[in-house]
């Protein structure tokens, strides 16, 4: 009995001593990522980006030591939900970073809002997370889907001056949104989408889709991972490369895929809120360090993880109280202003979505490797492009049939 009391007292002394040594309590951050299955690579890249920022900053965010709890969602929404509950209720984390996929993010969105725990998205792009289903417990460190393809629609219509375009993309929510955003701006600027080809998620062979392309000025394509690599190769093999310019958004030519793509990828023009080839000192430092650590340029996911950490860091720096106060932390996150990041200056709109630069990139061989060289920057791009937010929100989210093809309107 006596010994137990003594032990308890000892623990108490130890705890108070630890607290006295540093009045800033350690911050518990939960991370929802993917370590198993087909999407393990992008999960690793996100985590690497986040960890790289921590290493750069002595494992501290806003002066707090960080203890990172990583959970593997396997990319499944139901598991993401269970893991989010585990992180919040059992691990009692101060905030959650992730998850990787939009379907996962939508699955935990309501739970995080009701639990009143900040969720910092490092990659999920679904428009409605910051549009028709906003949550004040959510910020996005990346951008919304259409935000990137709006800019490309403008570039295609006004700089490249192409008129007739066929789109070909994966038949799921992200594909619908990325194509919808491109179509809206491109057609408002005088272009015409002739046909939208949808490819099932598990397709590996694109030959029959490629032969439907027909008489157009350019092709807009959106795929990711292995599908992106196979698409680009088959685009060349079936004689389209060099005949029809290929336009795309970040995922088709992500930095993590470029080393395996070879010359087939040369000349592809894409838009994205990041490129490893952005020429500012902050990005050059980031890319140099990341390359030294992981032997590959950081792409969309690595930059997403890195920026999520930077958002948290910068938000806490503006706080007066400790970052473990979730309500104050959330207010600080929603008001965060980033100056001088690898992606330039970023502020958040009233929905918690970045107003940021969007880069138009072109794949070129530079310094002996393929890079997304920036050929134009659209500064301070909002997720609503130049449209009235209320008007966009009154309409439906981009889908398979929205905006409709002009021929059917």
């Amino acid at each position, binding site marked *: 009995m006596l010994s137990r009391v003594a032990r308890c007292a000892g623990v108490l002394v130890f705890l108070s001593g630890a607290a006295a040594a540093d009045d800033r309590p350690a911050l518990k951050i939960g991370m929802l990522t993917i370590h198993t299955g087909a*999407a393990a*690579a992008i999960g690793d890249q996100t985590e690497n980006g986040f960890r790289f920022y921590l290493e750069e900053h002595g494992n501290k965010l806003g002066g707090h030591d960080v203890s990172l709890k990583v959970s593997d969602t396997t990319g499944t929404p139901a598991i993401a939900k269970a893991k989010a509950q585990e992180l919040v209720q059992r691990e009692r984390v101060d905030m959650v970073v992730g998850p990787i996929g939009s379907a996962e993010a939508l699955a935990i969105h309501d739970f995080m809002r009701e639990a009143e725990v900040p969720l910092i998205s490092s990659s999920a792009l679904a428009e409605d997370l910051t549009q028709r289903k906003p949550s004040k417990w959510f910020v996005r460190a990346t951008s919304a889907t259409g935000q990137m393809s709006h800019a490309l629609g403008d570039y295609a219509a006004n700089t490249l001056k192409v008129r007739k375009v066929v789109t070909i993309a994966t038949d799921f929510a992200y594909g619908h949104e990325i194509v919808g955003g491109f179509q809206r701006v491109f057609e408002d600027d005088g272009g015409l989408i002739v046909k939208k080809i949808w490819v099932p998620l598990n397709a*590996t062979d694109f030959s029959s889709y490629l032969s439907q392309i027909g008489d157009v000025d350019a092709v807009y394509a959106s795929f990711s991972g292995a599908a992106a690599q196979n698409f680009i190769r088959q685009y060349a093999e079936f004689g389209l490369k060099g005949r029809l310019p290929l336009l795309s958004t970040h995922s088709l030519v992500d930095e993590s895929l470029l080393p395996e793509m070879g010359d087939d990828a040369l000349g592809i023009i894409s838009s994205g809120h990041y490129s490893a080839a952005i020429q500012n000192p902050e990005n050059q430092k980031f890319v140099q360090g990341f390359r030294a650590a992981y032997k590959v340029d950081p792409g969309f996911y690595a930059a997403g993880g890195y920026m999520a950490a930077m958002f948290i860091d910068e938000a806490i720096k503006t706080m007066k109280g400790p970052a473990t106060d979730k309500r104050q932390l959330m207010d600080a996150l929603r008001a965060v202003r980033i100056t001088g990041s690898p992606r330039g200056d970023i502020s958040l709109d009233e929905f918690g979505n970045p107003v940021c630069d969007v880069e138009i990139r072109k794949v070129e061989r530079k310094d002996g490797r393929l890079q997304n060289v920036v050929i134009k920057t659209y500064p301070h791009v909002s997720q609503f492009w130049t449209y009235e937010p209320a008007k966009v929100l009154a309409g439906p989210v981009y889908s398979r049939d929205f905006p409709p093809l002009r021929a059917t309107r």
Partner: protein
Amino acid sequence: MTYLLSSLSFGGLLFLVTAGFCLIFGIMRVPNLAHGGFFMLGAYVGVAALRAGLPFPLAVLAGGLATAALGAVFEAGVLRRIGNNEDAQVLATVGLALIIGDSILTVWGGNPLRAPAPEALRTSIQLAGAFFPAYRLAVLLVSVLIAVLLWLLIERTRLGAMLRAGVDDLKMTRALGISVPLLFSGTFAFGSCLAGVAGVLAAPILSAYPGMDFDMLPLALVVVVLGGMGSLLGAFVGSFLVAAVYVVGPVLFPEFAYVILFLPMMIVMAIRPQGLFGSASH
């Protein structure tokens, strides 16, 4: 024209995958759900061999041998102990598929790996105004060649006779003094080898990537159900049928792209539950 060639070349590839599945099921009655895993492992071993500087045919051999070895070990070490317990067979083979998948992730990482086609086949042939990659035509030829060799093996050799006997009546085969365990190990290794070879041949078309196992497995299952369990002829015809639906279906009916593959299978199952070429006793 492109549709026809695409269907044919994809059908050839599909046949190589399903032939092994079919042999194993026909003889051992094991629904080998790790077959996609063997296919993927073959692709990765092939890519690794190519990167080590081996010529393409040797890479194919390496992929085939690696999967054959793993298949033989798995059969002798796990499947043989399970016996005829179907639930256990399903669980064990799914387990092996997951182990293969995770091991590949650990060794080769999660990014897709590109495999170059052999130098001589790296061009595209122009046919009726459309381009078609020469490599795919070669895959079609190779798969037809393998189909003919398989047919000769099964119909014209003593080993083939033993295999056929095993399919028709296992008890009688055993009674005739044929070593069934040896037959089983050999069949499983050979079936796995075919999957591995298919994997290497597929790599220059599909790349090697995590998840290709479960992209391919449903297709193989559809082919086998359609063609008839254990019938190689069924697998051959079924492969080209499924490939045609896979290639042309989503073009004609884009709204039904996800289900169209299963339609012919459902129709056949409703009318002829044993499959197009399966015998009713199975």
